[in-house]
């Protein structure tokens, strides 16, 4: 689906800042390999999906990664730590300030651009992925959590594999 929900809503500066902080912390725990913290950014029924622009626009339900709740999100990290084999690598996220696309009580819809660089062991960093986060965030008054984060990669093509979340 094209994002016809734009143009963006006006949201007050303090809300934008809280969301921005959430995104920065999200990028931080991934880039600093504190991956056990990552599932905590989601509500218990939180949904996490990594897909591509082509699949997203064609409404394809399968993702590169598709977690339907926080337990599945935790399993991704469990498998990454204990089962899957891959060459050591790290990410560096650059995350734009968010654009609010909907406000509905305590649920906010957002779209945020990001770029993610990947460094595999001692090789030079490379652009691994650029794309956008399509988020639904729940605000319980003190804590913001993702009810849904769909990561839409701009390219259909992933280099080799994806195991660390975006």
């Amino acid at each position: 689906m094209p994002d016809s929900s734009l143009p963006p809503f006006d949201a007050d500066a303090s809300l934008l800042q809280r969301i921005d902080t959430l995104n920065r912390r999200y990028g931080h725990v991934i880039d600093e390999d504190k991956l056990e913290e990552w599932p905590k950014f989601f509500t218990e029924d939180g949904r996490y999906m990594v897909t591509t622009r082509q699949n997203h626009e064609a409404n394809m339900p399968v993702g590169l990664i598709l977690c339907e709740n926080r337990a599945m999100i935790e399993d991704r990290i469990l498998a990454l730590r204990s089962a899957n084999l891959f060459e050591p690598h790290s990410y560096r996220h650059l995350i734009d300030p968010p654009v609010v696309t909907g406000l509905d009580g305590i649920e906010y819809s957002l779209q945020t651009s990001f770029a993610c660089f990947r460094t595999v062991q001692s090789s030079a960093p490379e652009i691994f992925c650029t794309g956008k986060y399509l988020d639904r965030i729940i605000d319980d008054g003190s804590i913001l959590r993702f009810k849904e984060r769909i990561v839409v990669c701009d390219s259909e093509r992933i280099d080799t594999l994806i195991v660390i979340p975006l």
Partner: protein
Amino acid sequence: MAPLDFKPNDFSEVPYSVYSDEQIYAQEQKQLFQGDAWHFLAMEIELPNAGDYKTMPVGDTPVIVVRDKNGNINAMVNRCAHRGNLVCIEDHGNLDCLTCVYHNWTYDLQGNLATIAFEKGIQGNGGMAEDFDKSCHSLQRLRVETYCGLAFGTFSDDVPSLTDYFGPEMCGNIQRLLGRDMELLGRFQHGLDGNWKLYMENVRDTYHATLLHSFMTTFRLNRLSMKGAVEVSEGGLHHLTYSIRAQDNDQGQYDAKEIRAQKDDYALKAPELLESWPEFECDTTLAIQSLFPNFSIQQLSNVITLRLIVPKGPNKSELTWWVLGAVEDTPEQRAMRIRQSNLVGPGGYIAMEDGAVVGWVRRGVTGAEDKKSILAMGGRDVERISESRCNELAVRGFWQGWHGLMES
């Protein structure tokens, strides 16, 4: 040992130069990709309407696959007969006719040259040479045949018809999995850091499954005690390996609540990931099939996928996955397939290692062009069938098929 020197009936040693040699690569393009083999082009459901097209490579050759107004699928080289420009620039779309943007020559959906801009010149001046015959300048066409919703193409006039090329055993499995209305649930691509044959060897390598993919053993997805076999078609070209749910303990083996991890501290927090239903009467729970040279069909529990690995020079390749469901699926079954699809693709729990190992082998064999790999697990020749999957016979079969076509 020169790359093509195999001992008679012995494909248990493969010179590493086959992966990196430029001459071998060029010969493969001619003998395999433009030679006597069928190449996967598209699922028919990707091109539902007249005029729907997609572009894709067959080997190194850019190809247009298009459904014409009679409902037939055609394939032609994406190269204008005038001066070689790409006729279709977008990777998919819908068109009435094919127009080359460079000088506006147009082709019909069968690839026939229809019109030439300023064919008669302008006000009587210029125009195409008198002797130019439009009917001799179509887009170069591939022979196309479809089977179970899959369209294949070949540049060869000699290769037998598609189902004869596959043979009845291979057709049986294709029919079992895809002989019904299917739905595309997703399509993903990843670039691999090595030669395409390293990936096809992996597809046919039944030996590595429980060793490389720890996710499977940790969660006992594929126990070695399961019944099954590896089958190789005549001449080695294609292969099929399958596992059948053990009769004794079938109840609950895939029941999510029964899944126990080998390590007590490592259990899935969301075992519903592996929830499945017995989709096939034969109780096949795993089937991996390769169709020579570079195509594969796979069933893993209820995840049904197609894979195509396209060479991008000797040391790079590109893998595309099609993840499929059946139109007849209930909403619950569809949801199970979608969840299980976390097992496959570039981020798949039991697939990501296969992509990585292609790059690791490429790096490992750099500078070892005079050395050979060993494929002696289960013998040295290519038997047609083995019940043990601790066997490299299907990989030996790949080299038998490869060798046969390269020498033909």
